[in-house]
């Protein structure tokens, strides 16, 4: 054997030894969470979901069983999400998976959880295809993009105008937002965009496109992308002189606090569809806002916070309803029981702007549980930003699906 190969053997042995499987705690309900946590709020979403689930352990657990949470970061990268979910399922032998933030990560996860028959709850991803894959094991607490697009599209067409210019970045959220809006306008009003342009996620200067948009004099400027792109485009749209009467509408990432903070005064009038607003007057919402303010030091929690919290509550509800044996031999039965318990949740009233309902069929109608979107407008930008809710729209389960 060559000397190099001989030297390699200890490296392999060391590596495999180090990667030996950790002991799996019996008699605990094991939950794996994978989210994008490379951003500050992402860390808080993950922490909140974990802490909300583990909170039951202080009061004796669920039906006397404690919850053990494994929290990992997927950095919004599918390969890392796939590695995380494989680790949850095969190494930690989890009963349930929660994840992820980005649709591009949740999609391959759905294939794995379907194949391995592990229930998966999607807290943040909005891409419509996630629940169209026909998996009997996936449940979504986030509002699907098939609903979102119509919340702002319908309201703005009826109240502002139908001449829409689109400027969006080439990430899943940006493309999804713009394409859905365009599709709605084509189908409903047979209206074509007055202008459409795609930019890179990393682009900083959007002024050349915005100057062209100004010359088309649109009613609405639709801005798709992640939060930094939305903030920049909004700000630069005023710099090039697009008047304030042109309504700026953005993808749901606009609900994240950095957008009004970065955009400053330009954020005033920026409209977006979301699942939750910290201005929601309901006691349950205000109680949640207070919790986040005190525990996570965030003044106005966005809908990713509320969806993370809501997911934890729904999971706890399902776990309390499921009859679990929590032995190695019963792992598959326990996973099935949790899936069925999730599917039995009907008209759950929590932080979402409408009730959340699931059912047994592996269809988007059954698994897109949250079907209510709200339209929110920033009334003030900067550090002490403020907002108001313009409209609340609930949809039928089959809305936006091909007949």
């Amino acid at each position: 054997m060559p000397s190099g190969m001989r030297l390699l053997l200890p490296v392999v042995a060391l590596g495999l030894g180090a990667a030996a499987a950790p002991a799996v705690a019996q008699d605990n309900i094991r939950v794996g969470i994978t989210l994008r946590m490379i951003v500050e709020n992402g860390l808080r979403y993950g922490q909140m979901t974990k802490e909300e689930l583990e909170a039951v352990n202080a009061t004796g657990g669920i039906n006397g069983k404690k919850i053990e949470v494994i929290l990992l970061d997927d950095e919004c990268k599918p390969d890392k999400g796939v590695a995380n979910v494989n680790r949850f399922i095969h190494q930690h032998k989890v009963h349930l998976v929660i994840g992820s933030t980005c649709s591009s990560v949740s999609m391959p996860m759905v294939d794995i959880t379907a194949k391995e028959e592990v229930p998966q709850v999607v807290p943040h991803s909005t891409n419509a295809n996630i629940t169209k894959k026909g998996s009997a094991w996936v449940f979504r607490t986030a509002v699907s993009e098939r609903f979102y697009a119509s919340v702002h599209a319908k309201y703005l067409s009826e109240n502002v105008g139908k001449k829409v210019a689109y400027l969006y970045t080439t990430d899943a959220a940006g493309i999804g937002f713009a394409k859905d809006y365009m599709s709605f306008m084509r189908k409903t009003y047979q209206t074509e965009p007055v202008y459409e342009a795609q930019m890179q996620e990393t682009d900083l200067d959007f002024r050349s496109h915005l100057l062209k948009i100004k010359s088309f004099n649109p009613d609405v400027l639709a801005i798709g992308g992640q939060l930094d792109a939305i903030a920049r485009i909004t700000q630069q749209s005023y710099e090039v002189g697009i008047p304030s009467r042109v309504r700026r509408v953005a993808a749901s990432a606009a609900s994240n606090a950095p957008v009004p903070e970065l955009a400053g005064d330009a954020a005033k009038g920026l409209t977006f569809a979301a699942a939750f607003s910290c201005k929601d007057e309901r006691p349950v919402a205000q109680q949640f806002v207070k919790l986040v303010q005190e525990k996570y030091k965030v003044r106005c929690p966005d809908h990713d916070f509320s969806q993370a919290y809501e997911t934890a509550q729904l999971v706890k509800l399902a776990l309390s309803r499921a009859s679990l044996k929590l032995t190695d031999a019963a792992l598959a039965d326990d996973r099935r029981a949790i899936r069925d318990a999730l599917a039995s949740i009907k008209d759950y009233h929590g932080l979402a702007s409408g009730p959340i309902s699931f059912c047994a069929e592996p269809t988007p109608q059954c698994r897109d549980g949250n079907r209510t979107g709200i339209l929110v407008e920033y009334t003030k930008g900067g550090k002490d930003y403020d907002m108001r809710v313009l409209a609340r729209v609930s949809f039928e389960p089959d809305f936006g699906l091909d007949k």
Partner: protein
Amino acid sequence: MHPIVPWLIGIVVLLPLPLLMPNAYQQYIVNVILINIILAVGLNIVKGFAGQVTVGHIAIAAIGAYSSAVLSTKVGLPFWLALPSAVLIAGAAGAMIGIPSFRLEGAYLALATLGLAESVRIAISATDALGGAIGYQNIPPPFLFGQPLDTHASYYYVVLPLALTAMYFSFSILRSDIGRAFKALREDPLAAAACGVDVRRYKVIAFVVSALYAGCAGSLLAHMSPGFIHPNSYTITEMVTLLLMVVFGGIGHIWGGVIGAILVTIIYDLTRDYYQYQMAMFGGVVVLTVLYMPKGIGGLIDQYLVRRRFNAIRQVKSNAA
């Protein structure tokens, strides 16, 4: 003994590995290690042996992955034809990436290849037919005798022979005339040219051979369960991780890419729980390696072997005296 015999023994010894793994996650990690070995060994050829500073290797892997995915889903080729086709396409892309190296060197070549790599990623993100920013899904696994190799254990038997073959060929190339020409090129292109080495030709060969490896690794990743690829998996961060494998293992060392790929993949997996500090830890490892172990673990091994040989010679001489 024919040089291929130890490799055949290696295959036989490693065949039962999935059976020894306690769970499917370990099998998955072993598959990722083997694919990373192919990538790192390929990068070591162009960077470690031919001395060409490229940061475009990850883009070639993306080209291999997407080519294989398109050929199997849209053209209908089985994996066994899609893989070699993707490898050839990647090789052609490697030749194109190698062309700037005729006139550029060092940091300038790195910048040019970085630009090309980012262009590939952005082009994929902006192409709906390639899944765009959503990702390319439903890439089928390989089939053998009508059975899908879609478990991590069964996929191991696809990846292992290819990884060992890739390693064997890299060693064969590096011990041949071509390998010696690469080393001459790395040390001093002018001196190499003066000695009769066709600098342009060998630069292109280095890029093409390295690209063949990247294309193979890309295709293997694309067909591995769950059959999903995304442009976010081919960013500069992945390229830096790949460079870390080669630098940590020992740049220019014959086993460097292999040792680096094994250790970096395992360390990355073990530090997954400490996600807040993971990137800082990896950055620290790169800095410390460059500062205190510039030849990587391969360099340390070489140092140990040389010292042992000298000690043995000294011992023989002292015994004779």
